[in-house]
């Protein structure tokens, strides 16, 4: 692949990781909202007493889920930051490699010392590329973990809807909360899918 093509490819990767980081911010915001909602739901279920015991358990689960999701997103964000650093370094190296190659082409006679430098730089460059690929795979694993977590969230938000039906005089309030849970979880899932798809395309 030519240096220009490599640069283009690294620039695209950089843009993808930056987009990933922006997507993570969105998920973290929703996870925070779920956390607050779950806290309120726990308080509500306490007020409702025995009729909302099950709902309280589910709310705690959702709260735990939101904390786990936030932690996972922080790890993802840290990986994305590392990837951005690596790719920035890669781009800088690509540019220098391009200039050194141009230098080599302009030389009236071959200069073995320069060839050796180019070969050495190429090795470092390839090692950096490998590091980027490793970070990307780690990101994909974490995104997969996040997707499973959200699928679990979808399942328990449905359970919350069922539990709300047993809430008697609190039934309406609990149903509203469970509806909100469901909506929030449903919002996260496509975001995670988009992030996964973005990473797979790199």
């Amino acid at each position, binding site marked *: 692949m030519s240096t220009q093509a490599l640069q283009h490819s690294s620039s695209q990767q950089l843009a993808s990781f930056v987009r990933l980081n922006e997507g993570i911010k969105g998920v973290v915001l929703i996870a925070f909202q779920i956390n607050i909602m779950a806290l309120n739901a726990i308080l509500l279920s306490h007020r409702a007493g025995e009729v909302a015991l099950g709902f309280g358990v589910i709310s705690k689960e959702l709260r735990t889920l939101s904390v786990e999701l936030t932690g996972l997103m922080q790890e993802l964000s840290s990986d994305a930051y590392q990837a951005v650093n690596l790719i920035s370094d890669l781009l800088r190296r690509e540019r220098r490699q391009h200039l050194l190659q141009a230098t080599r082409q302009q*030389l*009236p006679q071959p200069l073995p010392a320069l060839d050796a430098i180019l070969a050495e730089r190429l090795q470092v460059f390839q090692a950096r590329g490998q590091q980027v690929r490793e970070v990307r795979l780690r990101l994909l694993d974490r995104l997969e973990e996040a997707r499973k977590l959200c699928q679990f969230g979808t399942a328990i938000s449905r359970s919350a809807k069922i539990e709300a039906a047993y809430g008697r005089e609190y039934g309406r309030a609990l149903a509203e909360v469970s509806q909100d849970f469901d909506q929030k979880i449903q919002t996260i899932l496509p975001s995670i899918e988009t992030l996964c798809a973005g990473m797979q395309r790199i």
Partner: protein
Amino acid sequence: MKSATTIYQEGNHRWVVIARDAAKPGYVIDTNEYLISRDGDNLLTDPGGSEIFPAVFAALSTVVDPMSINRLFASHQDPDIISSLGLWLDCNPKIRCHVSRLWDSFIPHFGGDDQSLQSIPDEGQHIPLGQGQLEAVPAHYLHSSGNFHLYDPDARILFSGDVGAALLPPDEGELFVRDFDQHIRHAEGFHRRWMGSTEAKLDWCERASRLKIDMMCPQHGAIFQGEDVMRFINWFAELPVGLSTFRHRRLA
């Protein structure tokens, strides 16, 4: 590709100018680099920007092993002066770059670190080269606030950075100034705008007039030699520069 021309040679002591890149893209300012060699030591003045590195390196290779360049001298911190530092360090990690102490933490944005950058104190210093030495001559505020020229007392050559620079039209690419009056028209606008301080200018003119200079070598344009050196110093001393001329222009 740029061409390399020897402008001074005395035994193992040599000055070579790297100049005039016909293939250079129009949007990049043309620059002169000077190789000073003495007893196996090789110093390159204002090695230039990254974009012109291939042309400079290739031209140098016609007169010296470019890997043997062990010192760089940066008159100041501008990208056309020293943004190629990272590439030079790629070629020779032991290379040392002499630059004003003001810029030793700025230039690492182009490459290098506290090992590769050698700070020059404000008052200037001697820089050893082979069996001789060069003098880093203060030229602060001409135009950068941390600015040095490089004087070779044995060759009687002053590398004057942006002082004496001219933005020459493509059809006037002579290496040496042939007709001072004709040439200086291309230097006037540059000096009026880039040289910000009359006080600094007069101080430099006074000091430069006391040096024995056979050739004054700017980073852009053509080289002054013989009587044209003093002619330039006198012209520069008289030239209104800096903010006063800028204000005047705005009012006009």
